[in-house]
């Protein structure tokens, strides 16, 4: 499907490319960590849009595909560190899923530099800011994910 452009593309006014970053985070660690970034007033780039889930175990790999299909240039997936899962083992299951899925993406030639996995705890407000900035900068370097967006609409007469 042809992605309909988001209403107001994030733009820092300088006209440089502003990547669209989608983040899938768990409620108990990374979402709370991002809250801490806020309460600590640590600044980071505004390109990221956060989808909140209860646990990384809930993150269906399909959601990542949908984010790309929606025109995301980069994706962040983040949750509790091993052993810290609020549900004791959701992140362990997630980790296995990621290992397999990431391998498969690579095998089909999808650009892994655009998918970042991280453990960010509720205490790592600073790490969240670094993570978002690092991913945003890297993806800005890479430019729009044209290869994937070219798939949208292709094969439709």
């Amino acid at each position, binding site marked *: 499907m042809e992605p309909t452009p988001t209403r*107001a593309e994030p733009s820092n006014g300088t006209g440089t490319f502003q990547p669209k970053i989608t983040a899938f985070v768990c409620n108990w660690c990374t979402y709370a960590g991002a809250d*801490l970034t806020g309460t600590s007033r640590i600044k980071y780039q505004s390109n990221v849009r956060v989808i*909140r*889930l209860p646990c990384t175990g809930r993150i269906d790999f399909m959601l990542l595909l949908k984010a790309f299909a929606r025109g995301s240039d980069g994706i962040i997936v983040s949750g509790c560190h091993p052993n810290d899962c609020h549900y*004791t083992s959701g992140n362990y299951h997630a980790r296995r*899923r990621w290992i397999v899925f990431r391998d498969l993406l690579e095998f089909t030639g999808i650009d892994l530099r655009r998918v970042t996995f991280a453990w960010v705890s509720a205490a790592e407000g600073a790490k969240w800011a670094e993570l978002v900035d690092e991913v945003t900068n890297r993806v800005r370097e890479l430019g729009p994910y044209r290869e994937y967006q070219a798939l949208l609409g292709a094969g439709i007469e």
Partner: protein
Amino acid sequence: MARIGVFVCHCGENIGGTVDCAQVAEAARSLRGVVHAVDYKYMCSDPGQNLLKEAIREKRLDGVVVAACSPRMHEPTFRAAAEEAGLNGYQCEMANVREHCSWVHEKANSTTAKAIDLVHIQVEKVKRDAPLHPIRVPVSRTALVLGGGIAGIQAALDIANAGNQVILLERSPSIGGHMSQLSETFPTLDCSQCILTPRMVEVARHPNVTLYTYSELEKLEGFIGNFKATIRRRARKLDEKICNGCGVCTQKCPVKKIPDEFNEGLSQRRAIYIPFPQAVPNKPVIDTANCTFFKNGKCRACEKLCAAKAIRLDQQDEIVVREVGAVVLATGFRTMGLERFPEYGYGRHPDLIDGLKFERLASASGPTAGVIRRPSDGKIPETVVFVACAGSRDEQKGVSYCSKICCMYTAKHAMLYRHKVHGGKAYVFYMDVRAAGKNYDEFVRRAVEEDGVKYVRGRVSRIYPDRGQLVVKGVDTLLGGEPLEIRADLVVLATAVQAQQGSEEMAQKLHVSYDNHRFFAEAHPKLRPVETNTAGIFLAGACQAPRDIPESVAQASGAAAKVCGLFSRPELTREPVVAVVDRQAPPVWSSCVGCFLCRSACPYQAIEEETIRTRKGEVVKTVARVNAGLCQGCGTCVATCRTKSIDLQGFTNEQLFAEVMAI
């Protein structure tokens, strides 16, 4: 068509200073399904909440999005407000435009643009919010306490005193546990039994407590509030009700040479015996493994001698099934066997003993009536070496952790010895002295400074017998690793505290997880220390990790408080954020194919089997069903399900899909 209301909060300058809230509200108005959008200075204030309530009533809203702070902050506030206005609380979502936006970005169009996206995401979510209702689970207000040591006794008493029923289960013939074996207790040196036995009696007499000693848990089914416990009451071979505990049988029994467990084998008991004088219940039990009658059908001496005619040699084990609402695990610990110490001669030498044996030697109720005599020849030892960290903090022995209590009881032992044997020499080999705790360090210092116990920092490399004594070879690392050799009459090893025998089986029986040392695992190391990851099952005492008495008691009371909280209402209500397996009209019934691969994904054993039958009772198929009582709502099963037959209320596939599509 949805009727969504959007409320954009300025949070004073916190949001308003960075995000153009009016523009966000404006943009929200253009979203399909949004019929009302306003911005306001402080949404969490009373006027702000009233704004929300009025709009819900007047605009007949079926969903609201509050763009403000983090949902982790004010979601309850606004959900409650929505409820008051007659909207289901779960049809209220929050867009986090403060912590995730205004506080972390500069004032810019892009920041406002992000806020608009965040609102849009939540609008798409709330459109698909189903009204949810807290889950109610009936609770049977009886607690099962596993283990009759001090932790179990304390938990049982606290729960019972709050007016609830308790079943206290103990594997051995008497309650009391390790604490009943101790002589004195640190740091006060008050007599262990003097403080414990009143509690033992109290719990046994308690009208709300059913005491099952000499009994074991066969299996536990069900879930929080609704467990079904199957208990095996092993046959004591006598009628407890009739037996008056006179003890004649225990004196006349011809089988005499059985090592006494309570005295750690330092004395002997008969085949029919009462574990120890203050045992509760104070009734004998026949040790069928050693009783002549059970070996060759002869003897029956006890039966003949019993005036009360209480002996029942034909008595069989009894299976009792009880409904319980909660379980407290208090199965305690064991200590590492001396056979694990080749360097110390595998503890084959009678005068090389562990801490518990020493407790019995020092105990007034012990085999030596409290006089310290070495086991080999009953001689009063002139030199005693105490070895701390025997097995603890030792990877070779598979114990990486600190056993926590050894430093304290070793100091206590040395002190007791010095008190009882004047002029006796006491050495303590240690790695570090860990005496954190109220009056603990003072206690250790007292041993050194007042009672002249010699503390040597270093490991003992070898212990071997030599001319009626034990040669202890070690080094004093504080004296530059100078080799040290002490000829001792008695050596006491402070052996490592380990998980109870069979704790693994117990964990599997109860579906609680355990760590790699077989100690039961708490639900959260900091915030849920007395809960397990299985709802309704709690932890007390050393079955979770090495603990001393005050900690065990405190934790037991903590667990009891959790149980009482659970029992305080006839039903327990839980967040309805749980997984559900779809059910459809026949002939589909459910899209679940019953592969049950989701089962092992569930951390809470919440996935059950449901056999679908036609009205005629023919089996259509067996599908998964989520037990709402157990499900905690992580959603791992949802992501595992190939047929998308399981969904998570509050985070449904449709919602997450729509959220991504809104970006």
